[in-house]
């Protein structure tokens, strides 16, 4: 068993959180509130030391007054709390939206629309290997049928109804894969905590 007090703190807090699985109780509440408080404290200190101080206050202290512009833009967010001047918040929001849209739209279109579209195209090169050819066709059929499922301008009847039903099958397979991976991710968190309790705390495993 560990003699490190911090391991004990970690282990006891883990058990406090797990106690919720039985039912809600004061130990769980304590663990939860402590986590929220510690996480907030961590972020405040982290951003002060790694972002605000080196990127804003130190340059300002060194006489680089151009940094007053981001300072003022940042402070304008707080005008939301003063109704008389709350309209000022539109300035930093407008700046952020303009910057974000200008940067994101071309990049997003290139990376997530054009390249993905390219990946769906079945070319003669897709059939260099029979299996890859079959998979390319399945991807093409899956993409078209799924898109048809989300086409709501016409009633899903006849050929549109049949293809949209095939689309549902592809969507369900996607949901199933996501669910399987989600289970795996959540169980991994449990495994990590159990490894911590059995290893560093109890010393039962390496």
């Amino acid at each position, binding site marked *: 068993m560990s003699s490190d007090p911090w391991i004990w703190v970690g282990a006891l807090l883990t058990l406090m959180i797990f106690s919720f699985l039985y039912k809600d109780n004061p130990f769980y509440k304590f663990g939860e509130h402590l986590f929220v408080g510690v996480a907030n404290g961590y972020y405040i200190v982290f951003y002060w030391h790694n972002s605000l101080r080196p990127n804003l206050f130190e340059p300002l202290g060194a006489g680089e007054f151009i940094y007053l512009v981001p300072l003022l833009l940042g402070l304008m967010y707080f005008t939301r709390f003063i109704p008389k001047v709350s309209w000022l918040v539109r300035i930093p929001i407008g700046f952020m939206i303009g910057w974000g849209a200008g940067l994101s739209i071309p990049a997003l279109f290139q990376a997530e629309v054009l390249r993905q579209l390219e990946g769906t195209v079945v070319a003669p090169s897709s059939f260099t290997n029979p299996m890859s050819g079959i998979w390319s066709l399945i991807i093409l059929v899956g993409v078209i049928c799924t898109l048809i499922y989300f086409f709501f301008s016409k009633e899903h009847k006849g050929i549109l109804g049949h293809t949209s039903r095939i689309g549902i099958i592809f969507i369900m397979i996607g949901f199933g894969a996501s669910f399987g991976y989600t289970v795996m*991710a959540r169980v991994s*968190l*449990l495994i990590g905590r159990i490894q911590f309790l059995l290893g560093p705390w109890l010393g039962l495993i390496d």
Partner: protein
Amino acid sequence: MKWYDRITRIDRRIIYLLLTSLVILPFFIKVTIPQNIMPQTKRLFDFIEAIPPNDKAVMISFDYTPQTQPECHPMAKSLLRQCFSRGIPVIGLSFDPQAPGLAVDALTSIVNEFDSLATSKEDSLVYGVDYVYLGWKSGRIAAQLDMGEDIGGVFPRDYFGALIDSFPLMNKVKNYKNVAIVVILASADYPLDWIRYPQTRYGVNVAAGLTAVMAPKYYPFVQTGQVSGLMSGMKGAAEYEKLVLDHGYARALGNAETGMNSQSMIHILIMIFIILGNVGYFFSRRQKGADK
């Protein structure tokens, strides 16, 4: 209460107890459930194998958090073992505020492991020559784009406060032209930014090690070649551990491989419960129909 009603109303605490027991069991009873290596994991491994030693660097973006440590930490360790064993320089950095502590832990433990086996000073890993950790930076999109021009402009100092110009490695690696691949180990959507911005503008190769819950979203990027390799959750980490062990870069399997035994047993249990729940639902619905 009928049998089919009973199986749909199992006390959740019994399920939790069974689940916990099956997680613990493989740690004490040797159970080996074979793991297949998925092509996307092998692709990442092969990509790094193809990088010539002491040439271009591998950039690892440590962007995972303590709660996702069981999935991403073993990936980081295996990746570092492979790079260091092959003499590939490593540049670490982070954009998640919770990640720097974990990045330093992964680097320190692997460097100590290698140094403990070193027979001469030349065999040891030297900070600033073989690896560097640049630390955390705010405004990640701007930082990722600016690194395409000058990494030193974005990170003038490393995580420990030293000027990066003082490191021989950083004099060799100026921008993405000197980076073979960026591997993002993440528990949030950080790889998407790398695909959208630096890859689109500079053509840098991108790979990812992700928590399982995020993995399905990235498979289309593997198919188009935008992602050069992918480790998916604990399974991906276990696969990489195995590849690294099989190539003689590690002495033993790590935590992910042990965890996967628990993982496989839990999956069997969950499948049993899903089948039981469906059988119970089917029969109770049929009974209700008959009663009407």
